[in-house]
């Protein structure tokens, strides 16, 4: 049996997931830390950060990459390493559903905002300090944005195509949209889709800080990322990756679906390379497009997971877009802003957060939006500032809207759902 959206497309089942984040080396640890109200942002202690204006970030624990072979640690940028770890976890979780599939019909869509920024920085330093003969011959294969997708395909032996959407902080969510398109176009039977990023280095911190995008709360790292908050002063740079394994619903073995992606909407601001269109008009169109394709009206949603990074302009544009699209439903529809705990994983954010979204739908509880209170009075949304919110159960499934936006004016919205299979939601 398959569920067709209004555009005649099948929704896709999520049959596995993996994430590696500042809060945990896998998806379940990350979710547990989120529910416990932990924050993954900390002061950077490395000597290289000592002279930087921003000295905080969200870093993946060093032990997370211990399972990778030394050769890959040497020959792959951290961006690809984190993506590979998330993909391996998703692939292992999907193994039952994927049994018997032809590797030539399994694709990878792994986005990133930047790619191998650390490699670029290190090799440029080699060039300037040691001269042209000191530049590593693997510089280009390590820094190209598609390296992560390629490494996943190599590692798992997947030959159904490897793709890399690059749309800044929307990349991970855009990968999930492209995965659904590949599946519905019958170009693959299973797709590993998500995003990865490793920008917490001197060049990354200085680059974002020069454009005044980052929080300067060096003395209070755990309170620095304040999405939708009245006192927000920019986002916090983090690293990590998230990958989901997706299949057409009609092909998914019974009981294998952890949740579903009903449909995706997209638009572009065509406004400014960095600043969002202040009224969120095109962001609103992406939301409307996702809901229309999913055949869902705002009143059927039980939650929103916001992109909300903690910048003054971006948060207001998203808040206005949500108000425009959701209307009066926005008065009470609970909104969760995960970046207060995770920081901003850039291209890794969309997929990591979508996994958290499905986990929330499955468990029936939307976490507290840490640091979002007191809210900016111009944010007219029911942000979960006071504590976790138990999600309503209107049918056999719960539905969530999830946003992701990126520099360049990329707007992506996903409609996600999950079965209400937990009788006793968390508190």
């Amino acid at each position, binding site marked *: 049996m398959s569920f067709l959206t209004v555009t005649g497309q099948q929704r896709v089942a999520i049959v596995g997931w993996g994430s590696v984040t500042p809060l945990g080396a896998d998806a379940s640890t990350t979710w547990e830390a989120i529910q416990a109200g932990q924050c993954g942002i900390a002061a950077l202690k490395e000597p290289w950060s000592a002279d930087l204006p921003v000295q905080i970030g969200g870093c993946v624990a060093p032990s997370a990459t211990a399972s990778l*072979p*030394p*050769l890959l640690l040497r020959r792959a940028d951290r961006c690809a390493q984190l993506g590979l770890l998330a993909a391996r976890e998703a692939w292992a979780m999907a193994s039952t559903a994927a049994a018997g599939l032809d590797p030539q019909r399994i694709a990878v869509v792994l986005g990133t905002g930047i790619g191998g920024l650390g490699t670029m920085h290190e090799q440029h330093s080699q060039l300037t300090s040691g001269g042209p*003969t*000191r*530049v*590593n*011959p*693997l510089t280009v294969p390590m820094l190209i944005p598609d390296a992560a997708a390629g490494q996943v395909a190599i590692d798992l032996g997947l030959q159904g195509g490897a793709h890399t959407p690059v749309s800044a902080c929307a990349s991970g969510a855009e990968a999930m949209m492209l995965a659904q398109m590949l599946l519905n176009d019958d170009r693959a039977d299973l797709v590993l889709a998500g995003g990865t990023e490793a920008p917490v280095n001197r060049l990354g911190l200085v680059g974002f800080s020069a454009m005044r995008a980052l929080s300067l709360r060096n003395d209070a790292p755990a309170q620095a990322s304040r999405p939708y908050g009245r006192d927000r002063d920019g986002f916090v740079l983090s690293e990590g990756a998230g990958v989901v394994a997706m299949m057409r619903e009609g092909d998914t073995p019974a009981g294998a679906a952890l949740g579903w992606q009903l449909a995706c909407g997209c638009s572009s601001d065509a406004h400014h390379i960095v600043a969002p269109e202040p009224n969120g008009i095109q962001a609103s169109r992406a939301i409307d497009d996702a809901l229309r394709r999913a055949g869902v009206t705002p009143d059927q949603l039980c939650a929103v997971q916001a992109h909300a990074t903690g910048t003054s302009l971006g948060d207001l544009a998203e808040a206005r877009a949500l108000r425009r699209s959701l209307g009066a439903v926005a008065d009470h529809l609970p909104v969760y802003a995960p970046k207060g705990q995770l920081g901003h994983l850039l291209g890794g954010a969309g997929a990591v957060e979508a996994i958290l979204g499905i986990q929330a739908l499955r468990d029936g509880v939307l976490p507290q939006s840490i640091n979002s209170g007191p809210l900016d009075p111009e944010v007219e949304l029911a942000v979960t500032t006071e504590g976790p919110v138990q999600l309503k159960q209107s049918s056999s499934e719960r539905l969530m809207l999830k946003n992701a936006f990126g520099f360049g004016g990329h707007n992506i919205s996903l409609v996600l759902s999950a079965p209400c299979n937990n009788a006793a939601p968390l508190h």
Partner: protein
Amino acid sequence: MQVLTEELPDKQQLQGNLVDILHRISGADPALITPDARLMEDIGIDSLGFYEILIEADTCFGIRIPEEQLLQFKTVGDIQAHLEALGPASSSDPS
């Protein structure tokens, strides 16, 4: 990363350092990195790995291997012989 000191390492040290370098570049078991081992077939060094050898020799020993020479190497022993030949005798002060 080992830094070149004023005195080049003796033969045994050089061999040990070379094994370390080739292990880092290829991921091969150090026990397999013997003088007779073939760089591509036995150790698994690919074409980019050859150019990594060039950088490592420069960084660790301060020895710049000419590219045309690099491409002649077949075995670990070939590299070792080349480095030894460029050791104290050839790279010492001209005086």
